[in-house]
């Protein structure tokens, strides 16, 4: 099934949820609203065969609203195809966990929470994973200085 056909199927089932469809370098990215992300991911797994969640990560688009984007890179082991779904999450907002859909998401979501500070509703074990439990701040945020927590935010290269 082509990516186009998959997009059509998602649109047919979740017409009001799809915000944007982008194709770049042969990869299709569908941006959806975060409210029904669990249903969409379940649909991707059960009806479209995307049984492996390759990666779950987040991007901080500081200055835009909503600020964060949670990115789901999934793979269909039968047809050997990839697909990417993204869901925007605003500051101080939460998104539902997909660890009920793919077990992989458990640690990947913990990492997103630890380094980017996006909280997941109903997550079974939301603790920091990389940093110590008493760490303050979330280093992958764009306003977190690369030099360390007590420094001025990075201003870009001076040269």
């Amino acid at each position, binding site marked *: 099934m082509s990516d186009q056909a998959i997009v059509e199927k998602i649109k047919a089932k979740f017409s009001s949820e799809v915000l944007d469809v982008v194709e*770049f*370098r042969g*990869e299709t*990215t569908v941006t959806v609203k975060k409210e029904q992300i669990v249903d969409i991911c379940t649909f991707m797994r059960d009806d479209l065969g995307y*049984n*492996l*969640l*390759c*990666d779950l*990560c987040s*991007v*901080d688009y500081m200055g835009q609203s909503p600020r964060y984007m949670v*990115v789901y*890179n999934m793979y269909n*082991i039968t047809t*050997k195809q*990839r697909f*990417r779904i993204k869901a925007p999450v605003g500051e101080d907002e939460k998104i539902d966990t997909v660890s009920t859909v*793919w*077990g*992989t998401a*458990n*640690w*990947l979501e913990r*990492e997103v929470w630890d*380094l980017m500070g996006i909280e997941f509703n109903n997550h079974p074990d939301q603790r*920091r*994973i*990389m*940093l*110590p439990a008493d760490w303050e701040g979330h*280093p*992958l945020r764009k306003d*977190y200085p*690369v030099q360390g927590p007590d420094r001025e935010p*990075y201003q870009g290269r001076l*040269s």
Partner: protein
Amino acid sequence: MAANNTETMTINMGPQHPSTHGVLQLILELDGEIVQKATPHIGFLHRGIEKLSEHRTYHQVIPLTDRMDYLAPMSNNLGYVLAVEKLLGITDEIPERAERVRVIMAELTRLKSHLVWLACHALDIGAMTVFLYCFREREHITDIYEKVSGARMTSNYFRVGGLSDDLPDGLEQQIREFAESMPAHIEEYEGLLTGNKIWQKRTIGVGVISAEDAVDIGLTGPSLRGSGVDWDLRRDNPYSGYEDYDFDVPVLNDCDTFARYKVRLDEMRQSSRIILQALDKLKPGPILADCPKVVLPPKQDVVNTIEGLIHHFKIITEGFKPEPGEVFQSVEAPKGELGYYLVSDGSAHPYRMRVRPPSFVNLQALPQMVEGKLLADVVAVIGTLDIVLGEIDR
């Protein structure tokens, strides 16, 4: 047996423990010798590579990738440069010789990584000799690394658009001799282990994970193929010209540590096959793509001509600016699927560089593979998952 016991004992395994392959800490809750609960703690080696990458040019990220899975640096390099090339849209421009050399080095890397895996896995379980045998062969690969890149571990050999340098004279023959000798060495390891009763007792039926559970938890690479899922990115989503080579993907259905051991040994045989085929197909030619806006000029131009020097200087100081967009590229690293997710905002630095580390996801399967089993199996399972903490913590 344990029916009368009401008390459990909590023990701390690691982070400084020889069998945890680095700085992994496991909190084990034991009922006698039975593990009731295992909680991995990671992050002791976290260096913030993803954060650092956002403040480097695209080329400056390549040496950072060496330091993730330090047992397989060239695979990390390969995944990253392929992702940048995809982002730039120059995937089809890579010269044939560069692709062949990349395949040779990636497969040598697989051998190198699997040799360390076998050595340490066997040592953990109590087979000392195999360790010495494996490191004997690994030394040859390290020598080859040193000749092509100047470094024995952190190679930093691949460049966006090709390679940093061509193979030195005589190295092709050295690689060929090594690849031809490898199957006999693998026989030696098998002779020490496969029929060994102790090895069998410690691995058969240990660390069992079904295919459904393995896919659900996201296992990839040899760990998944030991559970009977026939999926190899080199064959199914080929990159760097892997479609030109004839090789088998070993798959076993036993789902246990012994099956994963057999799968990896077979993979080593296949790697030697691929290396020999690539050497046969290797022809003289350019090693860098003809894309002057993004690709560094050949080194002899840099040292001999002023134009080359200026060209080199511009790309090194300013970097290049891919158009805004995002790509996900993954390669079959020795440990599983190594993916890079790059987001460009049109500047000379990656807006986001996310690594999908195979070891991180594979380690997540550890608790369900050891809970309810013997304490001694924990060591076998850590070995069979083939984790590297540099990659897990990044």
